[in-house]
């Protein structure tokens, strides 16, 4: 028996953000164990926020992730504003959405062009892929640059922007400054349209979630728009709650082999957040042009093949351009860059849609504005268990593959989720029993 037991092991996952490993035990009767091991050292953000000023939350939490700092800043400021009882509206609200559009473009394009596309065409990286497909890679970089330009203009710089403030911004961009981006965004939008069409032609492995294997999709839902900063937390199985109720329905668990906490739904276990969940729950809120293109490609919600997440991301990129151009077209510079903020003792809650999915923040602040407690749940902590489930479901169908091909497929299955391991580790090196996982 023991002799038949086989192991798939990837010691250091490549082309994902952060440090993780994979360990799968299987034999002829099936999969015995799947562990997505996250060994990214923890950084204790929730602890180090204690005692700091509420105004520092967006600057400090941005440092959780260099790839989606805007998401952390957005969830942080919305949670703080909930605590203070204020709500930026009009142009300030639109500017935040515009900034988020920039980050979705940046982050999705990083994943599509640098981490994911080469999987479908058999290259180890984008540079190698660029030798045979120079136009695809160059255009993808051009699209990403437009996202960078948006974040740089509104946020001050691409990584860890400095302009986001509780109540609004430190400085609102002028109408002319935003209009100066219009041409670049238009040009990048048409490249993004080509990218969507190209993504649709990729060879997707034949694997779909069916029947009981279909995950519970969780995403924000807003009555008027595709969700970014606001909305209720909803799911494909009827969940419909406000951010304030999040901790009543979701629970985090500390497992021995991961420095990221596993988050599950109390009632039903694992679930999926991210582009596929958003797309499946909010398809009708995409712009008409994006839906039209999706339908031309015969690709509609629900998307039930995780390998097609690259196509969903490229559609979200296209949507982000439509939204960005709409916001810039309607923009009138606000009179004040931010609302007046006055601390009070309170708790504040917010969930926003990070590029990788739902990002929840909760803060308690005292009457002087010092943070007394913080809780942050990153998208990858929420997807971690689903990624393991996905490997468990997928592998039996590909057991006939030679071992190295099977290992490659497992890595690809993980990359479908664009896991951001740096985000998910609230923050320390684990340790599970010495060496026991290495015995095969």
């Amino acid at each position, binding site marked *: 028996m023991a002799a038949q037991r086989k192991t798939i092991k990837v010691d250091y996952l490549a082309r*994902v953000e952060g440090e993780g490993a994979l360990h799968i035990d299987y034999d002829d009767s099936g999969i015995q164990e799947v562990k997505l091991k996250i060994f990214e050292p923890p950084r204790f953000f929730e602890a180090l926020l204690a005692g700091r000023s509420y105004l520092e939350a967006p*600057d400090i939490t941005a*440092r959780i992730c260099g790839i989606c700092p805007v998401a952390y800043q957005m969830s942080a400021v919305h949670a703080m504003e909930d605590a203070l009882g204020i709500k930026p509206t009009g142009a300030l609200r639109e500017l935040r959405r515009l900034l988020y559009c920039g980050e979705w473009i940046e982050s999705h394009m990083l994943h599509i062009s640098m981490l994911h596309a080469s999987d479908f065409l058999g290259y180890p990286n984008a*540079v190698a892929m660029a030798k045979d497909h120079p136009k695809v890679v160059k255009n993808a970089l*051009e699209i990403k640059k437009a996202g960078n330009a948006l974040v740089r203009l509104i946020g001050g710089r691409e990584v860890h922007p400095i302009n986001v403030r509780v109540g609004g911004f430190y400085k609102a961009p002028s109408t002319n400054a935003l209009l100066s981006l219009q041409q670049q965004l238009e040009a990048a939008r048409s490249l993004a349209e080509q990218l969507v069409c190209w993504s649709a032609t990729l060879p997707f492995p034949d694997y779909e979630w069916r029947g009981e294997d279909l995950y519970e999709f969780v995403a924000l839902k807003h009555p008027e728009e595709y969700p970014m900063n606001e909305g209720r937390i909803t799911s494909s199985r009827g969940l419909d709650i406000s951010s304030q109720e999040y901790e009543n329905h979701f629970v985090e668990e*500390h497992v*021995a082999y991961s420095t990221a906490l596993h988050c599950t739904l109390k009632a039903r276990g694992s679930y999926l957040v991210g582009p596929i969940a958003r797309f499946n729950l909010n398809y009708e809120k995409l712009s008409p042009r994006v839906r039209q293109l999706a339908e031309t490609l015969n690709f509609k919600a629900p998307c039930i093949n995780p390998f097609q997440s690259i196509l969903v991301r490229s559609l979200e990129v296209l949507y982000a351009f439509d939204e960005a151009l709409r916001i810039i077209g309607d923009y009138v510079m606000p009179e004040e860059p931010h609302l007046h903020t006055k601390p009070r003792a309170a708790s504040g809650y917010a969930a926003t849609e990070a590029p990788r999915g739902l990002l929840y923040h909760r803060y308690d602040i005292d009457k002087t504005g010092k943070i007394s407690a913080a809780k942050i749940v990153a998208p990858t902590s929420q997807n971690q268990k689903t990624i393991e489930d996905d490997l468990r479901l997928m592998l039996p169908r590909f057991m006939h593959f030679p071992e190295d091909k099977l290992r490659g497929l497992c890595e690809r299955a993980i990359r479908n989720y664009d896991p951001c391991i740096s985000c998910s580790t609230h923050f320390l090196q684990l340790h599970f029993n010495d060496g026991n996982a290495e015995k095969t």
Partner: protein
Amino acid sequence: MVSDQRSLASDRALPKLAVWKFTSCDGCQLSLLDCEDELLLLAGQLDIAYFLEASSQVKEGPYDISLVEGSITTPADAQRILDVRRQSQVLISIGACATAGGIQALRNFADIQAFTRAVYAHPEYIATLKESTPISAHVTVDFELQGCPINKHQLIEVISAFLHQRPPQVANHSVCIECKLRGNVCVWVAHGTPCMGPVTHAGCGAICPSYNRGCYACYGPKENSNTGSLCHWWAENLHVENTLIIENLRNFNPLAPAFKQESEGRADGDSD
């Protein structure tokens, strides 16, 4: 025969570059991928031999240039950095975590066990060092590029300088100079906004004052910064509370000596 330590391996077509990650947010290595215009050009000049975030292809060392992101916070990483040093002709630490401990070095001023309990239900699963330390506390570093995050143009300059065996042209003056070059009105003088600009290393382009806020020193101290004097004037002239002054010294570069000493002096003074 002993090879000339200054020369890059000339028998290989391209010098080998490695990018290593320790405890960090990935933002500094991302800066390399953010060089859209230069990336493919750079890939033609260098063999990107080890860069796990961007490539599943790993080539064996030794490497001509290693870029190191992140601070050291675990026993395993304290060993791994020694190995990285052994394999690297030139080792460049990039970013505030690698050069000054990063935001996670706030643990150095607190009780680490209390920190672990605040985040994890089972602290016994967690193995971490008591302190977060910069790369230079463990191995010899050939160049430190400061910033949270680093400036991608400075990164290209540093790589290019080492490729051509010349000193990197990274200005070591203060953010104030960048602010003047940008034509900004001084936020301190005109609006009374506390600003770390006078002691902070250039590189960001003085973005915070350009967006109407004070600099919060994410690039760390400049060479010979007179931090004590600046803090004195924050207190005297702007009436900033001591705790706030300490927090501004203890954010993204808390272990940079000029900031660490001043913050410790002020924390001690406070408790007296």
